[in-house]
């Protein structure tokens, strides 16, 4: 399977659906563009007129506060008009209603959809079906991809550790169900990280995880050795009821990040988390709020990176 859907004829970003298939140059361009926007939020007038007169629809089929808010802020700071739609997914005939929703919004002359959906491939589907002038940004689809989260994490890493070639990154937790993990792994490998290591029990790893280009460990204390970046993933409560894990406390004992365990990583290692965090489940509060944590930095970087992606995808329309 290859992916050209998200690039236009000139190889420029048209949709942003997944990291897969994007070049290192393009990812770097996103990071550079984000850097130029990073200052905007600190100005007294927090706006640039780049997308004035454009209408962006945040189409959230799945609940989210943080992601939707940062997308909304990013769009407003680019001077676009934003509509938020929270659509609870109904159990039946989702295909029809998904397409119908898109068709209805299209006829209201919107320019961009930011989509979050509980099923893998939903953003691809919308990008394929929507009118050609509309751009689609994937804000998370099922267990597939969350590319803006990955790029804001790359942005955060680059601010603190600009040399990707010497970077060892550990991703810890529920890789199996994580769209964030898949996009992070692809981004890190594309940017040339020295090693991406996933650390989890087998129940939380996809069957062919090595095929993603990672090394695997089932033991946190061993897995954290020589690590520069520790990425924690959120553990959903339903993993216990579906027999993937015995209990939160046992998970915390094995895979929870404590000050003690963090010492095994490199002394200047940074700790990341896509949020929302489960204190005492995957991460100890002392680490989450500690000096090595960059969790809140990630959140504020989210705005600049999402501004960059939106601006780049709309480049053709704006020019």
């Amino acid at each position, binding site marked *: *399977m*290859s*992916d050209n*859907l998200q690039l236009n004829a000139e190889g420029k970003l048209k949709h942003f659906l997944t990291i*897969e298939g994007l070049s290192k140059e393009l990812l770097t361009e996103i990071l550079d563009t984000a850097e130029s926007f990073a200052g905007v939020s600190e100005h007294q007038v927090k706006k640039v007129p780049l997308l004035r007169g454009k209408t962006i629809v945040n189409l959230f089929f799945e609940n989210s506060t943080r992601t939707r808010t940062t997308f909304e802020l990013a769009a407003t700071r680019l001077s676009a008009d934003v509509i938020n739609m929270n659509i609870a997914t109904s159990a039946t*005939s*989702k*295909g*029809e209603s*998904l*397409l119908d929703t898109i068709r209805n919004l299209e006829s209201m002359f919107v320019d961009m959809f930011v989509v979050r*959906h509980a*099923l*893998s*491939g*939903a953003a*691809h*589907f919308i990008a394929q*079906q929507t009118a050609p002038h509309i751009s689609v940004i994937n804000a998370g*689809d*099922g*267990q*597939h*991809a969350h590319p803006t989260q990955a790029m804001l994490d790359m942005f955060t890493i680059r601010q603190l550790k600009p040399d990707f070639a010497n970077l060892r990154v550990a991703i810890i937790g529920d890789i199996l169900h994580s*769209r964030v993990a*898949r996009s992070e792994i692809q981004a890190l490998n594309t940017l040339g990280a020295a090693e991406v290591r996933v650390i989890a029990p087998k129940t939380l790893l*996809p*069957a*062919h*995880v090595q*095929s*993603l280009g990672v090394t695997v460990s089932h033991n946190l204390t061993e897995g954290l050795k020589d690590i520069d970046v520790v990425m924690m993933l959120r553990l959903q409560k339903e993993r216990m009821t579906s027999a993937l894990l015995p209990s939160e406390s046992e998970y915390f004992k094995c895979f929870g990040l404590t000050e003690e365990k963090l010492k095994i990583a490199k002394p200047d290692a940074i700790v990341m988390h896509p949020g929302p965090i489960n204190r005492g489940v995957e991460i100890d509060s002392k680490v989450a709020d500690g000096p090595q944590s960059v969790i809140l930095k990630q959140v504020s970087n989210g705005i600049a990176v999402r501004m960059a992606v939106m601006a780049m995808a709309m480049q053709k329309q704006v020019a």
Partner: protein
Amino acid sequence: MKIQINNGRIIDPANNINRIGSVYIDGGKIVSVTDEPLGFKADSVINAENQIVCPGFIDLSTRLRDMGHSRKATFYSEVRAAASAGVTTLCLQPDTVPVIDTPAVVELVKELAEKTGYPQIYAIGALTQKLEGSELSSMLSLKQAGCIAVGNANQPVKNLLILRRAMEYAASHDLLLMFRPNDFWLGNNGCAHEGAISTRYGLPSIPEAAETIALAQCLELAELTGCRVHFGQLSCKRSVIKIHQAKKYGLKVSADVAIHQLHLTENDMKPFDSAYHVLPPLRTEADKQYLRKGLAGGTLNSICSDHQPHDLDAKLGAFPETEPGMSSLETLLPLMLKLVAEQAITLEQGIACLSANPARVLRLNSGALTPGFSADVCVFDPELDWQVNGENWKSQGVNTPFWGQTLKGRVTCTLQAGKIIYRA
């Protein structure tokens, strides 16, 4: 009505015939192959020069969508597709609406089949009431009404005690069980093979073990109960190995593979393209090669179409929520010929897998050009290229990953019980 099919290459694997000659038909039956019967005066002559004449195809797994889902397809639309594909006998899976679990529904199937002028549609009766896997269906009544076998379609029989009893009961009435092995729990509502592709795209996945464990359980029960079992739509290497071992051990079992499993793998899937959403899922290259080997060696004795036409809406959506299945009657012959061209099997084997072998599974007196047999005949041009497009396609379901492709081999004439049901 006397019909003479002239000068074609007759390939009739059951009778070990492969030579140029003519086929003579009278009163709906095969009268003679090659030798002209004394005083035979044909009412109709079909010129089959440079074409292949073989027994009509018998499809072990088909869905016509009527009753219940006529927006997807109807008997009328799908028997036209079947006739144009050289298929003269269809086995209808019981997961219609209503389910084929009472004699009345079997009668309805027969009536619809007669009405559309394609009587050879055999219903597979439901193994359990409403396919729910909890209570036995009235299998004897279903058999007496005309069901050719029993099965539970894609629905699981989660409770092995119920499966055991259903198999015992089926065996008591000498009914064949047609079984697609799939463990409900291990299948875990997946939509793609558990491999590199499902990992990369975050698709809920189905391991091979979902198939092989259910297969192993059913093999054990086949021995315990003495029930005749035909395993349908096998998808992986380890299933072929298990069937091979079971046969060697002496169990009376047979197995088929759906035609697309012999050509497509997970790597052929275009990202999130629902045309590739099929159950069991497309697996690996190694599985595909081993299925081909199983076919060549006779472990798998039949190829089915696993025809599942859909309306457009069923395939519009995010991949996991789209409905599985391909519309595949019309690609059956060209894809079988592709196996021959790629030297996976011989042409005789390919034809046998579509005619004589499924006839043997169903214990039908057909699938061969034996004098006295019903004149079910397929005439095809093995060299004719055609494009899979709206102009050439007859099924109401256009859900095929081969859409737009040019395939080689096309049926020119189909006879069912001596009646011409398709002519190009």
